[in-house]
């Protein structure tokens, strides 16, 4: 990867034709018919998870959801470039990345329903839980990558964040630390063009990928709605990380088709014309055109993929609705890893209160002066 790319890398044109790009096509030379179909299937399934979760929020089953509609290719393509032993640091919109990492569909909505602050065991899938503080995970990923480097382990660490997060100081510090330490970390910016109501021009006067150059980190822009292009550039960056090449920066140009979260109303700040323009660049439609053009798409395949997506969506729905409220005393669980007297006392007092026991702590001790 070099600094020469001032245009987004693209491998599939909007009409489904391949782009002749020798450098990046070579990076996906092994992606044959079955892999192309698998990529398409995961784009469809993860969109179905997202629409199901959005519906669950509208029905009152989730307190909130951050839709990723439109960003499937950026997430699935990059996740396909990673190995199980690589480690992923995410933001709060990487539902498709989580699915591709092996997070079970029944775990994806736990945090959003409010039964816990986490969805899955990070170390079980080598991926952190949704990170709400914007951009802070860039430093976490850099530290993890550096630690892996100290261990002599040849893995890549990747940090997902958005265009809004690129304005945060922590991201700037992360780029500085990563460059200084030559840490094997991939910074993956999903530029979805909107940080709630702020367009990307408010975040950056230049293409975000160019910021990396100032730190001595190679950066690339990629068409984030082109799953093969995203796969290619992420493979390149991950390989660079694993082989001692240090950090890389990817800016995937994509678009958040829906609201920031289900609490948001994008009609107040952006035009229907803009959204329609991006709808014409839909990542799933483009991949389907490629499959059709290469005789890999038929109605049987469509039905199979649809049935699988329905099955996963049903798992998400059923698991979400079945999630019971946690027991009240779980309030006090895991605040500390070691016993802490204040927490122990509060747990005990609140349990006694719930049980209707008289609070003996307020009773006057025997023999004290009155």
């Amino acid at each position, binding site marked *: 990867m070099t600094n020469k790319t001032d245009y987004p890398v693209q491998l599939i044109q909007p009409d489904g034709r391949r782009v002749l790009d020798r450098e990046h096509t070579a990076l996906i030379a092994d992606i044959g018919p079955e892999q192309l179909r698998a990529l398409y299937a995961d784009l469809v399934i993860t969109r179905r998870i997202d629409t199901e979760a959005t519906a669950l929020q509208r029905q009152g089953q989730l307190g909130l959801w951050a839709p990723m509609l439109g960003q499937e290719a950026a997430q699935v393509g990059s996740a396909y470039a990673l190995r199980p032993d690589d480690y992923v640091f995410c933001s709060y919109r990487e539902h498709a990345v989580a699915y591709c990492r092996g997070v079970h569909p029944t775990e994806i909505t736990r945090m959003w329903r409010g039964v816990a602050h986490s969805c899955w065991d*990070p170390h079980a899938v080598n991926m952190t839980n949704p990170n709400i503080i914007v951009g802070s995970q860039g430093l976490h990923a850099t530290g993890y990558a550096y630690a892996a480097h100290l261990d002599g382990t040849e893995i890549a660490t990747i940090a997902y964040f958005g265009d809004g997060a690129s304005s945060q100081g922590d991201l700037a510090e992360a780029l500085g630390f990563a460059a200084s330490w030559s840490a094997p970390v991939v910074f993956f910016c999903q530029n979805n063009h909107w940080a709630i109501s702020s367009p990307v021009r408010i975040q950056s006067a230049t293409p975000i990928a160019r910021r990396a150059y100032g730190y001595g980190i190679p950066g690339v822009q990629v068409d984030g709605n082109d799953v093969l292009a995203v796969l290619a550039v992420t493979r390149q960056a991950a390989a660079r990380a694993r082989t001692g090449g240090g950090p890389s920066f990817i800016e995937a140009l994509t678009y958040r088709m829906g609201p920031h979260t289900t609490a948001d109303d994008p009609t107040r700040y952006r035009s229907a014309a803009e959204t329609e323009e991006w709808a014409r660049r839909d990542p799933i439609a483009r991949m389907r055109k490629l499959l059709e053009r290469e005789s890999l798409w038929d109605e049987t395949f469509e039905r199979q993929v649809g049935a699988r997506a329905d099955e996963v969506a049903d798992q998400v729905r059923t698991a979400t609705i079945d999630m019971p409220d946690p027991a009240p005393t779980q309030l006090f669980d895991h605040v*500390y890893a070691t016993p802490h007297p204040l927490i122990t006392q509060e747990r005990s007092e609140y349990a006694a209160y719930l049980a209707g026991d008289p609070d003996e702590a307020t009773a006057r001790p025997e023999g004290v002066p009155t």
Partner: protein
Amino acid sequence: MITTFAAALNAGLRRAMDDDPKVVLMGEDIGRLGGVFRVTDTLQKDFGDNRVIDTPLAESGIVGTAFGMALRGYRPVCEIQFDGFVYPAFDQIVSHVAKIHYRTQGKVLAPITIRIPFGGGIGSVEHHSESPEVYFAHTAGLRVVTPSNPADAYSMIRQAIMLDDPVIFFEPKRRYWDKAEVDFDAEALPLDRARVCVSGADATIVAYGGTVASAITAAKIAAEEGHSVEVIDLRSLSPIDFDTIEASVTKTGRLIVTHEAPVFAGLGAEIAARITERCFYYLEAPVLRVGGFDIPYPPAKLEKHHLPDPDRILAAVDRSLAA
């Protein structure tokens, strides 16, 4: 062995690094310089720059990358150069380091120790003399401790590093050059236990960090005036060992809390409230607080008025005894 506070910390860090190869030190200027207070002196020479890591100048970066290293099984010990410099790292500490264990329901540990030289009394410039302990004591998930003498400095830094919870480790910088006997093989008091350092019967003074020595001096002067004053070194600011304070106050009936931090909403308020709740029928006088004024830390030529000295502590003892 007679050792300074800073040298005792250095010995504790060295021992912790010897005991566990996953212990790494991170911070600005901690390598060849040995830290601006020389607490990490010679450690990079002996352990290498992969274990004593001179970081870029960025506090959020130090703590944020330490958090990532902890996720991979390391036990980072971060040095924040001065108390007033910790604020850029505040988000990483309270939003991530403090909460990851709770957030992941016990699946992820953050055994990070964040060393912060704190407090005044060294005649320095702005942002070099602050007492930000309450910000951290108010945050669930963090433990907050401060040794007041070389022996505790040696044992408490090792305990903090070994603990599976994150620890904010405040070092009273005006005590770095204090010397005392340190038994490096002594059994250590548990990290969250307060210590009665002067026994007395008429009143109790609770102090921590830099004010412990002032409280002990006040107790000596009070003894010359015929008053028997007990002094408790809190050591742990979160959790607080209320049992030790309660045992003392049920004996003396009077309590004075002293700290350098501003009094309003300070730890003295928490101690006064809890001890009033626990010892209401034993108290002979209201719990009094002697602390810094509710002002930004003042210029060096005024700090002697701001910091609680033995005279101001004694004035409070007299008020308590007169009640």
